[in-house]
């Protein structure tokens, strides 16, 4: 039985013309069966025979065999061998590449006809084929071929199908019922073109186009290797959005991405575009060999540029000359050399001041002004503090003595409190462990230890885990005078947020409050002992009265016992029976950044350093320095003492506080200013050919930047740059870019490229089904001639418009009798049907239900995601924290792209992880997809919000059905859905609490306009509609 692929191959090779042609008929066979051993790679060439170049194939080999004698198959070595019986047959049996009888006959006929070679189609200059005037040339080429095969094209699709198809293809959003109705009613001859114009003018068009481009350029929000931490890339995504919205010419688009930073007087936008070169995966794993990773980063860039612009697999030449195409290993490294000027390190830090290498801050003018003003204030405040400190300098010697004396007398000691009560506001269960023994775990510098110890006033949160919490703890400190309140965060391996918090990647205290006798006790300064205190989480944020700011321990704290200490404005006196109340407010935007285990402590001492370990109430470094006579202290010791003195004296606190508040304000503003990784050009690193790709081998030649040799040579005065490369990519001298782009675009609108293998137009790729059409499209892309008014060279929108207004595109997709002959529909006697892309699956549910929030650009959004999905990530150990409000309902293109753990719903619908450039997504159909659409909370929420809208439309199932698939249901479909509604209504009436649960899914407001049972049963109807194959299919 013939498979579809075989049928298709037969169709493509045998239909249309008797003369054998090298490119169409012979090259695909030879590429598959001969070139591995008799092709371009000299290291694997057998018997000295090369068959991909005619001159070589006509030469006798060392043994005297002449591979090909034009016109005389019987004398030709290859013909003798492919027809040879037994072990002499070629290809050899061990290769498992048997030729069919038909293939053998074709090769024989080709030799008999003179063995005419043709240059590989993709490497020939683009010549615009002649087309008849008037009609859309796409239709001319498609119909001419169909006519040759005796296959009539399909009529235009009905208008409902057509508007849904073109809306999904151009914008990723299905049409509304009103848009469908308007199109049905519009009798004007250009009704369809008006729809196309409307769709292409929408920002949604840019979002849809960006989705495809972002796959190509491996755009993501995390660095991909090891800890896979978030890196600032989204402004680049916005650059891409703007480029498609504004129809930026593709040549400019190319230049800016590869070399925006090198364009003279580069604009901010052009610099942002150069982030393209920095989107490769990077690693911050300790112990990596920088040279090895620089080699990896460079190779990634070669693969990406080669796939996206050249449709070629130059990456295959990293270790050896290409086996099938004329790319050499030297070409690979010469291409890599173009990028050797990009400033980078092998280990790309993922934290701290040098994180991610070259970054470009992108403040708005207002932010810029505000930042400058803040910085001026800060300068003044720091000067005032310095002045104050120098005025206090004479008192320092006495302070040092006193501090040491108090420390040694134990006056600084922290006194852990024994809570009387501990209550939560939102449901977490707090248990007090005062004197019992408990199991503890502690992670310290790579070692995890488990031990039992006295609980000593430990409070543990368990049970319900709300996003925000306030813990209220009371305790009786006894008689005393207190100056500091401390809170110790106690780690436990079971806590997913850096071992401290019940979620998120940090523990955040937005406000810490202390009441005595019903009156608040104010604080005047704060200090914490974390190792990497993020400036936007300074301790002052825990008592600044702003619930949106907070003190936090976030990523990479390396201190095992963390403590925050707040200094009271006035000493607090308590009598024996007095009860104090501490409120730990945890209201930050990070979900569940709530503390899992903690202790409360008081100190009556003068400035006890926050460290719960006994004897550490002065930092070790300071204590050591204090014991060294002043004139013998090192610079570091002097600094440590000065810093401590600044914090720990009673006279400078107002100045200290002012600086702290301004620093917090500056950090919060800085945090709002977008940043993006960019290319920064420095003296180029030496690039050598690495023999067999081995980065340890320094014996290879040093190479200069160059384009693949067989495609020509750049004529530049000095060392060629990325800008030279970009200019060549979009020059007429390069035959590939326009063809490759047009081919990818074709796939967006027909499901398959004109040449199916989008990432390889080389000899292992596929001979285009319509080579002249592809050439015409490439020519038209570079220089529009068809309906050229208002177009420009390299006009992306023009090419899209030309495709979607063609009759070929507008055909019905209904099955045809000729499908038997052309089972993959490569000749396009009809349109194709296929499932929409992962992001669009989401967008359809959101828009049909009305949940969608359309906001163009901006930081990536984090939709709901199952707990524990990131459990095997580390550095830091973390939990996902979903966005709030509108950002839960953004389009799929804005989803935070975590490379090592892409959002599971997107991944399930075949979105690529973008660890590598991906120009050809697969499209699968799996049970896990069913589980996503049935059970992922966002789809359930969409269903119940959709259900409320259906009920607002009088409960019309017809309305709902049409809303989703742009057509009314058939009587059978209506019956199925009414039946489901009626049966589930009965069930929910019997179990009203189930109805309440279902209609309460998600964070969108619950409609109270309808009885819960009705809303719930309609939710099952809405859910069925959102799950239909047709709903996620473009027909």
């Amino acid at each position, binding site marked *: 039985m013939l498979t*579809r692929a075989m049928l298709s191959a037969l169709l493509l090779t045998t239909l249309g013309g008797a003369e054998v042609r090298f490119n169409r008929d012979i090259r695909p066979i030879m590429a598959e069966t001969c070139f591995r051993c008799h092709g371009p790679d000299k290291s694997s060439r057998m018997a000295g025979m090369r068959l991909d170049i005619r001159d070589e194939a006509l030469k006798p080999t060392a043994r005297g065999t002449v591979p090909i004698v034009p016109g005389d198959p019987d004398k030709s070595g290859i013909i003798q061998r492919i027809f040879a019986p037994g072990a002499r047959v070629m290809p050899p049996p061990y290769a*498992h590449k048997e030729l069919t009888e038909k293939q053998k006959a074709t090769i024989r006929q080709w030799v008999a006809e003179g063995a005419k070679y043709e240059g590989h189609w993709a490497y020939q200059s683009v010549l615009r084929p002649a087309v008849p005037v008037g009609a859309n040339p796409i239709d001319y080429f498609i119909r001419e071929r169909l006519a040759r095969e005796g296959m009539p094209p399909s009529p235009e699709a009905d208008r409902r199908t057509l508007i849904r198809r073109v809306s999904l293809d151009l914008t990723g959003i299905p049409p509304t019922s009103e848009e469908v109705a308007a199109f049905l009613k519009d009798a004007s001859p250009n009704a369809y073109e008006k729809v196309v114009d409307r769709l292409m003018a929408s920002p949604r068009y840019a979002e849809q186009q960006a989705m495809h481009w972002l796959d190509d350029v491996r755009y993501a929000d995390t660095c991909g290797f090891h800890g896979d931490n978030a890196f600032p890339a989204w402004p680049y995504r916005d650059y891409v959005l703007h480029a498609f919205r504004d129809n930026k010419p593709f040549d400019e688009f190319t230049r800016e991405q590869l070399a925006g930073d090198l364009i003279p007087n580069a604009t901010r936008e052009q610099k942002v575009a150069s982030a393209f070169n920095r989107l490769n995966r990077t690693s911050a794993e300790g112990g990596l060999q920088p040279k090895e990773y620089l080699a990896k980063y460079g190779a990634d860039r070669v693969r990406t540029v080669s796939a996206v612009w050249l449709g070629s697999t130059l*990456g295959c030449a990293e270790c050896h000359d290409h086996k099938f195409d004329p790319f050499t290993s030297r070409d690979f490294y010469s291409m890599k050399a173009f990028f050797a000027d990009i400033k980078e390190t092998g280990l790309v830090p993922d934290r701290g001041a040098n994180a991610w290498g070259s970054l470009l801050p992108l403040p708005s003018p207002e932010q810029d002004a505000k930042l400058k003003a803040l910085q001026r204030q800060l300068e003044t405040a720091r000067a005032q503090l310095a002045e104050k400190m120098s005025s206090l300098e004479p008192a320092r010697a006495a302070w040092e003595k006193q501090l040491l004396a108090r420390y040694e007398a134990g006056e600084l000691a922290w006194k852990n409190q024994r809570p009387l009560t501990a209550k939560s506001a939102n449901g977490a269960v707090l248990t007090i462990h005062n004197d019992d023994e408990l199991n503890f775990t502690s992670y310290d510098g790579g070692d*995890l230890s488990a031990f039992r110890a006295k609980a000593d006033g430990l409070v543990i949160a368990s049970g319900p885990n709300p996003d925000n919490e306030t813990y209220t703890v009371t305790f009786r400190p006894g008689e005393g005078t207190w100056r500091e309140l401390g809170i110790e965060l106690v780690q436990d391996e079971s806590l997913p947020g850096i071992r401290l918090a019940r979620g998120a990647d940090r523990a955040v205290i937005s406000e810490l409050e202390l009441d005595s006798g019903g009156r608040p006790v104010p604080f005047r300064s704060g200090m914490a002992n974390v190792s990497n205190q993020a400036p936007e989480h300074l301790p002052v944020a825990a008592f600044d009265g702003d619930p949106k700011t907070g003190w936090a321990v976030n990523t990479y704290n390396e201190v095992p016992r963390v403590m925050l200490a707040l200094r009271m404005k006035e000493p607090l006196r308590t009598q024996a029976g007095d009860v104090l109340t501490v409120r730990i407010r945890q209201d930050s935007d990070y979900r569940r950044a709530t503390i899992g285990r903690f202790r409360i402590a008081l100190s009556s001492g003068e400035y006890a350093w926050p460290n719960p370990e006994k004897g550490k109430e002065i930092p070790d470094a300071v204590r050591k320095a204090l014991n060294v006579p002043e004139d013998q202290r090192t610079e570091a010791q002097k600094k440590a003492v000065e810093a401590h003195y600044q914090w720990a004296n009673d006279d400078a606190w107002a100045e200290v506080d002012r600086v702290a508040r301004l620093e917090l304000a500056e950090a919060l503003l800085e945090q709002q200013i977008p940043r993006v990784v960019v290319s920064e050009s420095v003296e180029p690193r030496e690039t050598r050919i690495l023999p067999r790709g081995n980065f340890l081998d320094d014996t290879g030649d040093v190479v200069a930047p160059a384009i693949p040799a067989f495609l020509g040579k750049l004529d530049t005065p000095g060392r060629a740059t990325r800008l030279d490369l970009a200019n060549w990519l979009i020059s007429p001298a390069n035959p590939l870019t326009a063809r490759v782009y047009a081919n990818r675009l074709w796939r967006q609108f027909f499901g398959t490229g004109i040449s199916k293998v989008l990432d390889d137009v080389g000899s292992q790729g596929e001979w285009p089904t319509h080579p002249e059409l592809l050439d015409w499209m490439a020519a038209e892309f570079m220089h529009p001639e068809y309906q050229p008014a208002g177009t420009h060279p390299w006009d992306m929108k023009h090419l899209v418009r030309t495709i979607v207004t063609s009759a070929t595109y507008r055909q019905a997709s209904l099955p045809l009798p000729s499908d038997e002959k052309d089972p993959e529909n490569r000749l396009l006697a009809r349109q194709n049907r296929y499932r929409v892309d992962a992001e669009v699956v989401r967008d359809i549910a959101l828009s049909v239900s009305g949940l969608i929030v359309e906001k163009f650009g901006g930081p990536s959004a984090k939709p709901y995601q199952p707990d524990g999905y990131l459990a095997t990530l580390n550095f830091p150990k973390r939990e996902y924290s979903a966005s709030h409000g509108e950002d839960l309902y953004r389009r799929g293109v804005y989803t935070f792209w975590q490379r090592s753990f892409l959002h599971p719903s997107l991944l399930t619908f075949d979105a690529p992880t973008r660890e590598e450039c991906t120009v050809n997504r697969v499209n699968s159909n799996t049970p896990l997809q069913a589980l996503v659409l049935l059970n992922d909370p966002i789809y359930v929420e969409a269903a119940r919000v959709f259900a409320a809208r259906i009920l607002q439309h009088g409960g019309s199932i017809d309305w709902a059905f049409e809303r989703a698939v742009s057509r009314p249901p058939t009587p059978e479909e209506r019956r199925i859905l009414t039946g489901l509604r009626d049966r589930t209504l009965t069930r929910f009436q019997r179990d009203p609490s189930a109805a309440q649960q279902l209609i309460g899914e998600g964070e969108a407001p619950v409609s109270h306009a309808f009885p819960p049972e009705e809303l719930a049963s309609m939710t099952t109807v809405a859910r069925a509609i959102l799950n239909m194959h047709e709903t996620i299919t473009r027909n």
Partner: protein
Amino acid sequence: MKPSPEIDIRRRSFLRQGASGLGLLALNSLMARAQGITTSHGVVNPLHFPAKARRVIFLYQAGGPSHLETFDWKPKLAEMHGKPMPPSFTKGQQIAQLQGRPLICYGPQLKFQRFGKCGAEICEHFPNIGGIADEICILRSMWTEQINHDPAHTVMNTGSIIAGRPSMGSWVFYGLGAETENLPGFVVLLSQGTGGQMQPIASRQWSAGILPSKFQGVKMNSAGDPVLYIRNPRGVNDAIQKDSIDSINALNEAEYKTLQDPEILTRVSQYEMAFRMQASVPDLMDMSKEPASVLERYGAHPGDGSFASNCLLARRLAERGVRFIQLYHRDWDHHAKVKSGVEYKAREVDRPTAALIGDLKERGMLDDTIVIWGGEFGRTPMSQGGDGRDHHIKGFSFMVAGGGFKRGLTYGTTDELGYAAEENPMSVHDFHATMLYLLGIDHKRLVKKYQGLDVRLTGVTGDVVKDILA
């Protein structure tokens, strides 16, 4: 994009005749009965070779277990302890965190003992594995090419450092299909270990890469939903769920009547399978019917997510027809305290590993199940920080059992200091080729065209190591 490239013609044509999802179940049981050792449900059908094994359980010890404290006894290294590592061993070689540091020999930190009739030398902290020494085959001459965790995992799992290549589980599932329609064909389980050396593991390690995503590994979790989105929405009971799926399928079948698009019927069958998964996963996870003696044997406490519980779960998955089961057990990255670290790991993995192999044997499943034990690389014979070992790629050990491997064999050697594989070096690709061979697959012929290349698990190298086959 678009129409699914892997078209199961048999099923499609069958369904087209039946035009109903009901035909599917009958077909499956028919196919199941016809299943022999020479045929499969995947793209390799008939098999390239008669298969010895039909499934794989890979006990993946992530982080890089020290071969020198597990399976590779090096008395000479003990003698050299504290002395400089001879430069002849290390010159020009890749080094990770020890770059630029003095290289000092660090003798084996744990004692070894001979076990079984075969007299295999195994670290004495693994007495249970020692107890089945005559069932297992120790490979002492493995080597790999990537020295950092993430790329080394990727090489071990996909045979390539380039992201996007299919993992070995996906290849096997793709090649052979599954023997169950109720569970995924490739299941991944993870356990944390309790020593703190928790290197991250990316989902790339079980990705289907360039193969259709139905072949990706499905991670099962001990906490939360065992499979993502396997639970009905809140307020939806099984009856409503079934009614909903039936209605969805009825709607899809109605569409099929008009369009005759086989993709629609595939969708119908996927919804059926989703429903069966929802029904069968709770049964799979429910270990309440396992006798106490079995729990005791593995040291399993169902629900605790431990390696022991996962080993027991692996057996249950194998019994239910899952093709490839991969257990990741983390925490082997002993840059420091390798002695106590390996002792700790031994307590976690020794008993369950031996229990699994023994249990499979008693159930008659060991003969056709390949059990693999090993990690992404080994550790240096040189010390790091005085009590640890750095990453090491030139020589390390694997342990395999069942599925057509020789029993009671110790194969290959490293040099006298345990640095480089010396006798019968075995690359990751050789290992892949051998595993596939036992499954009836020629590694050179299990290929997928991508970017013009015949992509395969073994790249362009790899030989079947016949010496270790029974």
